[in-house]
């Protein structure tokens, strides 16, 4: 909301500078987004009279104009043509500086000298009018005088204030001034208002009003104003409107707008002769009703909207024949608007239900100065005063105005201002500091609250303007906020609290940190890729799968929740490849989503009032690493994983080759990571499918790219991903025996299974490691040789040769049970 300093100063004394005032406004929660200075005096811009206009040889777009600015003839070259000899125009003398830092100097053009510049209104920053020179009227005897003095332009400062949603009362200059007056402990002045005229007729003799739905319209005040001559507004009115960013239209509309800006009450003037029966009635719109609003758009009324619980209630104003005149509180219709011929006005000043206005405004995509105020809640008691102010303003341009007495005032339901009990200690309990009771009272009364002191409590009744103040405990918080706000947040104490409970990370955060640390130690650059992807991107690895869609994406590129990190990470790698930085490992830890119909939906409280249970998409945390260094492949990825598994303390995870790797992985160079005991799949390892690389990284088809894709939800769960035994084993003091075995092993037997069989063959086996896998035509068909380094030992003694021989036999027996024989 734009508020002029000069306007505020009319309502409250403000000797402070603009910058000082900004600090005060900010501290009141009336946050100043921007400060604009207008009407700064223009040095060396004066009134001049045109005495002669001459063509310039060889130029048809410019002419030589001789002017007099009080000190004799001066030659100026000018391109405008909208003036004649005898007219008065603004002259920027040599040395003047115009808005935009345009410096006026003496210039030569086509052999003549220009001693300054004749200006348009826009060049002087006075309006947007750039159509020729600004023509000045009634200034014959003021040649050479500074323009800003002649035009009586006062310099001013405009504050662009952001009004918070719980300050319906602050949507007006008056509201801002009230806060300032209370904070600064100064007097708040009220604007001048009119009284009705004593006539033989009362309003009810010619007009009527009604409320059909008391929930939608809480008050409807209808006045009749006669003797109106539609024309321009006085200059002070148009200046005020312009300072607030509104365009002057006519004295009637301007007066209505000025009242709204000043007091916060929107009013709506109708041409009385165009309102059947001079009757205004507020009712609920019916299905199939339509209205052409002032902006020329045809509106279908009473249609259910998309919003949760929006059944399509519109409040409309109708005339005596039940014809819809306007969308109440939002925008009027074209049929009854004020025209140049209007002489009699019906003026509507009302209170509408904020929620109804908010829903209608959203549904019709129509936000107006009026709807913004009504949806926050206009003071239901303000209407009569606003009308009196409207008449006072309009009378300045229509001296014969007649305002019929006893405006029709119909009431529906309006909220009752709550009375909140502030018990002794309540302020301190919330703020942590106690404030003087008299100061609390003074601050609240300044804002229009009425305060009654009980024996230990203060009973605080909110003014009708403060529709944001609630009943009960919530109301107490509202009132205490007002006290704190006016007292000044910066003046409140602060204290570092402490409590007995220790701080801690949750287990998932600890796991994630561990995973990230290991990945980074192993060379991963962490990336952050989009959660929302396109349908095409989704299909790259999960073709045809049911997906979770966004109803209102910004663009088709973000229409779907990702089901994998793989495409995003490959794309991030691709971007680095394009920049010649592809010799790198990139990875992401993030959430992927599954459609609730695919199992794993999360039952969650939802619906209106949280009364139902909805099944939300499954959310799964994954680490996906793309190993893109020059020689990386599936084998590097396996090695990478083995370090990760070791550092995560996993008990025994088998790298189990699979031809069913799922989307995006190479079909024959992948494996699942399976907990041997629980069978849980912790993730997958392998290479990125060549087709996916080709799709995302053009020109890199032949490069192998390793990949590791971990399911952190499974890894976080020790019941599925078992951890190593917690008890420490002290290594034996006796020397170990080392044994190498090369076993011809059927292709179908997994190396890790064989290793496990060896490891468990005897309690004397300390560890088993694979050190070679070797294929040869000299080996039997369908086998390969697997070489193990086996460490044997006992915590009680040095093993004898016999013992070693026996262990060796049981090792071979175990191997044989899996079909593996000594080479």
């Amino acid at each position, binding site marked *: 909301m734009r508020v002029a300093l000069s306007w505020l100063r009319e309502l409250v004394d403000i000797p402070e500078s603009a910058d000082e005032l900004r600090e005060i406004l900010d501290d009141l929660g009336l946050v100043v987004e921007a400060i604009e200075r207008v009407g700064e005096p223009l040095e060396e811009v004066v009134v001049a009279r045109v005495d002669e206009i001459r063509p310039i040889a060889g130029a048809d777009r410019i002419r030589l104009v001789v002017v007099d600015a009080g000190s004799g003839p001066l030659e100026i070259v000018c391109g405008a043509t909208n003036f004649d000899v005898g007219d008065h125009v603004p002259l920027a003398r040599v040395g003047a500086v115009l808005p935009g830092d345009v410096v006026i100097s003496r210039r030569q053009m086509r052999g003549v000298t220009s001693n300054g510049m004749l200006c348009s209104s826009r060049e002087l920053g006075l309006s947007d009018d750039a159509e020729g020179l600004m023509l000045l009227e009634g200034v014959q005897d003021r040649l050479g005088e500074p323009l800003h003095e002649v035009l009586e332009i006062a310099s001013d400062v405009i504050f662009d204030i952001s009004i918070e949603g719980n300050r319906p009362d602050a949507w007006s200059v008056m509201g801002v001034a009230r806060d300032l007056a209370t904070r600064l402990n100064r007097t708040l002045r009220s604007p001048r208002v009119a009284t009705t005229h004593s006539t033989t007729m009362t309003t009810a003799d010619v007009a009527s009003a009604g409320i059909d739905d008391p929930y939608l319209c809480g008050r409807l005040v209808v006045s009749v104003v006669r003797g109106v001559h539609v024309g321009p507004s006085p200059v002070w009115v148009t200046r005020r409107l312009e300072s607030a960013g509104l365009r002057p239209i006519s004295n009637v509309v301007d007066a209505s707008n000025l009242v709204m800006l000043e007091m916060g009450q929107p009013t709506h003037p109708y041409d009385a002769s165009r309102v059947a029966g001079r009757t205004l009635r507020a009712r609920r719109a019916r299905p199939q009703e339509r209205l052409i609003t002032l902006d020329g758009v045809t509106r279908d009324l009473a249609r259910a909207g998309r919003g949760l619980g929006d059944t399509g209630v519109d409040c409309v104003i109708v005339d005596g024949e039940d014809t819809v005149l306007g969308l109440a509180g939002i925008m009027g219709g074209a049929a009854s608007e004020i025209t140049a011929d209007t002489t009699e006005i019906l003026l509507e000043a009302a209170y509408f239900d904020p929620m109804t206005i*908010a829903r209608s405004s959203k549904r019709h995509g129509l936000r107006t100065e009026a709807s913004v105020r009504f949806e*926050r809640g206009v003071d239901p008691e303000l209407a009569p005063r606003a009308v009196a102010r409207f008449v006072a303003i309009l009378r300045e341009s229509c001296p014969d105005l007649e305002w019929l007495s006893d405006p029709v005032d119909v009431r529906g339901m309006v909220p009752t201002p709550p009375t909140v009990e502030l018990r002794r200690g309540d302020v301190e309990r919330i703020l942590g500091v106690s404030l003087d009771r008299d100061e609390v009272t003074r601050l609240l009364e300044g804002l229009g609250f009425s305060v009654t002191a009980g024996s230990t409590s203060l009973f605080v009744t909110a003014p009708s303007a403060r529709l944001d103040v609630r009943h009960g405990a919530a109301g107490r918080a509202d009132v205490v906020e007002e006290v704190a706000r006016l007292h000044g947040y910066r003046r409140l104490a602060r204290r570092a609290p402490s409590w007995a409970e220790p701080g801690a990370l949750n287990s998932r955060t600890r796991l994630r940190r561990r995973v990230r640390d290991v990945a980074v130690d192993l060379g991963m650059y962490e990336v952050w890729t989009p959660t929302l992807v396109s349908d095409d991107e989704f299909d790259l690895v999960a073709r045809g799968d049911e997906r979770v869609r966004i109803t209102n994406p910004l663009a088709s590129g973000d229409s779907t929740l990702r089901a994998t990190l793989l495409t995003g990470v490959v794309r991030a790698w691709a971007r680095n490849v394009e920049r010649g930085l592809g010799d790198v490992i990139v990875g992401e830890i993030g959430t992927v989503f599954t459609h609730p119909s695919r199992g794993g939906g999360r039952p969650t409280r939802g619906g209106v009032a949280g009364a139902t249970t909805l099944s*939300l998409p499954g959310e799964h945390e994954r680490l996906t690493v793309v190993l893109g260094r020059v020689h990386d492949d599936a084998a590097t990825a396996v090695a990478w994983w083995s370090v990760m598994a070791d550092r995560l303390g996993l008990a025994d995870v088998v790298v189990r080759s699979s031809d069913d790797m799922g989307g995006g992985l190479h079909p024959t160079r992948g494996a699942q990571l399976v907990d041997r005991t629980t069978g849980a799949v912790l993730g997958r390892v392998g290479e990125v499918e060549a087709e996916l690389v080709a799709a995302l990284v053009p020109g890199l088809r032949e490069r192998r790219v390793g990949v590791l894709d971990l399911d952190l939800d499974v890894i976080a769960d020790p019941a599925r991903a078992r951890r190593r035994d917690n008890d420490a084993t002290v290594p034996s003091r006796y020397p170990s025996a080392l044994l190498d075995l090369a076993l011809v092993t059927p292709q179908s037997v997994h190396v890790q299974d064989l290793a496990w069989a060896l490891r468990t063959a005897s309690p004397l086996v300390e560890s088993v490691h694979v050190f070679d896998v070797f294929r040869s035509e000299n080996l039997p068909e369908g086998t390969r040789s697997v070489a193990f380094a086996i460490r044997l030992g006992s915590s009680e003694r040095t093993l004898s040769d016999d013992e070693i021989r026996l262990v060796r036999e049981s090792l071979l027996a175990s191997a044989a049970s899996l079909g593996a024989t000594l080479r």
Partner: protein
Amino acid sequence: MTTSSSFDDLAERSRELLALIESAGSLDELRQSEPVLIGKRSPLAAWQKSLGSLDAAQRAEAGARLQDVRRQVQTALAHRREVLERRARDERAAQDRLDLGDVVVRSVSAPLRAGHPGLVATTQRELEDVFVAMGFTVVEGPEVETDWYNFEALNIPPAHPARGMWDTFYVDLGEPETVVLRTHTSPTQVHLMEAAVAEGTLPIHAVAPGRCFRRDTPDARHLAVFHQIEGLVVDRDVTFADMAGVIETFTRAYFGPDITSRLRPAYFPFTEPSAEFEITCTICRGAGCRTCSSTGWIELGGCGMVDPAVFEAVGIDVEHWQGFAFGFGIDRCAQMRFGIADMRALVENDVRFVGQFS
């Protein structure tokens, strides 16, 4: 070759063409046969040429038959190509096969080079550590929420004008606008309080970091996807002064001893009294610069005393419990701490950028 005889054996010759296609054993063979099948040297081309010499009635009839044959040949060709491509892919895959169970980890060699964590992750970690040291526990909540958690339980009923404060992505599930991508981390407050009430585990001293979404075109200062950290304290007698103290302690701990904080009134439906908190401009250290519009202060986040309406929604007795909450952008902290002019660098994922942080 007379035109009549050539069209007479159309059926037979087309069977030969189809047989030829089926017999192609490789993509190469198929490619070599193409000129004979559909190219200039194919019978199709010859027939096409001879159509001209027929009279109108015959031409229409022969043309239709020819068209039919052409379609059959093309379909067969495409089908065969697909079969052979799949076969070739399978063969390549079979040749390429690597049994990952046989990988001998100890013999894999790979270059040694440090990686780098993402800036957001690093920042989040530091923030978590600061709050853990102050006695907060770290918790997390989901990214897809119902209207109840994201809005209504936070005292933002449907159609409330305050909803305009958040540009919301709606998820296409169930009734319209019932499921959202969370627009802030505040719904985690509701989950925390509901759980604490259900399990009888009040008080709460928690922070909840996480990813949030706003339907907003990204620019230098905002991303549509971003990270926030939310704080919630519910205890017997915590006050606004405690909240201001927590924010001040955090500010100095994270940004350094010469950076301080201050509060100014604001509106959030789920807190009352509410405040925005500002910190000393980290660029000019309070002297005034372009970043802070010469005020010396930068807005960081929002905070306030938990609104009694929120307590009521989750079933916490306002006569016995009181609380405060705060929230601010993790990405924004990183931006201010490291002087990142354009936030979009965070999602560019250029390793030269990531590599600067550890």
